[in-house]
């Protein structure tokens, strides 16, 4: 059930926290079906942009478009139903529940029978249950969590907890995936592992995937397109080579124009 991956576009996006303007008139185009890296120094507004697209932050001015639909007026929930699903910088899980339950909650977007049908266990509920459990099993396998599906989430090491959230995001194969530093806290080997998994999933279920990430090497291996922000404004976009080669990006990102390592 994979729809064609839509393009995501923001026009003149401005977000204010009181007087402070976290995003200033940002217009970006996210090419459909790509894995897009969102980079920029701390406080550049990366998470705020993610929040604005996913509907978790009120937008002062401007608009957000996914495919041909204008989502600006929709709340976070209805954007999720429209296929825009996100992860969080600090992992948000159902702490006292099993890995499987945490992943199954992600299937909320898929057509579910009515509350009464579910409560009385009618056949439609059992069919939906089988479909969801199968989807969960598949994504857990992909992320190597199959063996842990009955463990309580608060017993897992930090790295696996991150993967559980990623699984929750991916289980309903949404068309737009927003991940906020999914590799934070992973060691080098874990990062490579995550990158290969995300690429493999992206190949099986094409979607427009945005990843906020600081690790330049990870962005280069994982992303086919990069957008750079600096202090709430759009800086540059393009292929990883173009963006990382740009003098202004180096200035903002590394504090000086890089000499040798273009």
């Amino acid at each position, binding site marked *: 059930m994979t729809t064609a991956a839509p393009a995501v576009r923001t026009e003149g996006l401005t977000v204010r926290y009181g007087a402070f303007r976290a995003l200033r008139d940002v217009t970006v185009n996210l090419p459909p079906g790509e894995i897009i890296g969102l980079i920029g120094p701390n406080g550049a507004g990366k998470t705020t942009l993610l929040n604005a697209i996913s509907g978790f932050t009120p937008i002062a001015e401007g608009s957000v478009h996914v495919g041909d639909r204008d989502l600006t007026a929709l709340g976070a929930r209805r954007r999720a139903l429209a296929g825009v699903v996100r992860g969080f910088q600090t992992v948000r899980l159902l702490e006292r529940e099993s890995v499987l339950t945490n992943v199954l*909650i992600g299937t909320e977007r898929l057509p579910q029978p009515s509350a009464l049908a579910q409560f009385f266990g009618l056949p439609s509920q059992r069919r939906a249950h089988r479909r969801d459990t199968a989807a969960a099993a598949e994504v857990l396998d992909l992320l190597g969590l199959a063996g842990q599906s009955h463990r309580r989430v608060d017993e897992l090491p930090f790295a696996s907890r991150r993967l559980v959230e990623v699984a929750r995001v991916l289980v309903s194969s949404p068309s737009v995936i927003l991940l906020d530093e999914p590799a934070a806290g992973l060691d080098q080997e874990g990062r490579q592992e995550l990158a290969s998994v995300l690429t493999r999933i992206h190949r099986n279920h094409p979607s427009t995937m945005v990843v906020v990430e600081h690790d330049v090497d990870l962005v280069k291996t994982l992303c086919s397109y990069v957008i750079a922000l600096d202090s709430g404004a759009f800086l540059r976009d393009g292929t990883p080579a173009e963006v990382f080669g740009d003098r202004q990006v180096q200035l903002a990102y590394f504090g000086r124009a890089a000499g040798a390592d273009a």
Partner: protein
Amino acid sequence: MTSTTTRSRTGTGAGAGAATRGPGLGRKLTRLTVFAVIAAVPPLLFDSYWVFLAAQVVAFAIATLGLDILYGRTGQLSLAHASFMGVGAYTTYTVSSYGYGPAVQLAAVVVVAVVAALVVAVPTLRLSGLRLALVTLAFGELLAWVIRNTTDLTGGTQGASVDPIVIGLLDSSEPVDAYLIALVPAVIATVLAAHLGRTQLGRRMLAVRDTELAAESVGVAVARTKITAFLLSAVYAGVAGWLYAAITGFIAPPDFDLFASVYLFVAVVIGGAGSVLGAWLGAAYIVLVPELFTLAGQPNLYPIVGGALLAIVALVVPDGIVGLGRGIGRRVRRARDGQEETA
């Protein structure tokens, strides 16, 4: 109640998922037979006073199951749960005073409970924690005030006597019959509450409890889930009130006041929030323990112990008795897994 859950887990987290068909069915049947054996004990062995108490435990179990769905599973703190029991009881009283039988009474109880739940749930959608508790407390007190001041309709502070339910041979004023009449809805309520753990509706509730942000991020309608939880818990409480009125044959406002709601809380917290078995253990606690104290001749020790236990359990063992059991089960399994991995 022997614990039947050494290997497996009841209630939430018992995701059927990868478990193959065989043991799942076997586990369910063993649990069913154990429940049937325990359920058969009171009518055969106890004297009529203790059967009357057993019948009350069954009625209160339905109420604690309802509160468990609302607080244990969805994390909504309501201090009006006993008031919903009151709604059920007084609807039964009014309907039975017009001479209608148990079927009409039950239908009326469900309808009135749903309406009452909407009246409480809709305005309080955006509230949580302390504020929600305070507003539900206000609704509960308002209902108690209405009952106290409509003496001609509800008997007011004097209470009202309710004629027993008669189904075929069974007359609910006889303790054994009352026990059996109460058992059927209780079994159905328990099965449905346990089943809830394996549905998306059940998972939505857990998400609303633990992290509303993540819930919204995957498309869960937080407001609608809260209302569903309120509706289910109110209907459970209403049915419990209907049975309570039939079993005791007499209802009065103090049975459903703020303290009654607090004691329902004690039941769910001590029994084990979020689990069906916990709700039954909690119901047994709030009905049987006061009796034990009156037998020991110290009736007012119960609130002292009840209060102390509520505070201590909430601090030390937040998941209650069942949580304790499950915790030990998990540590045992993890120790065993530990050996397997190192071996």
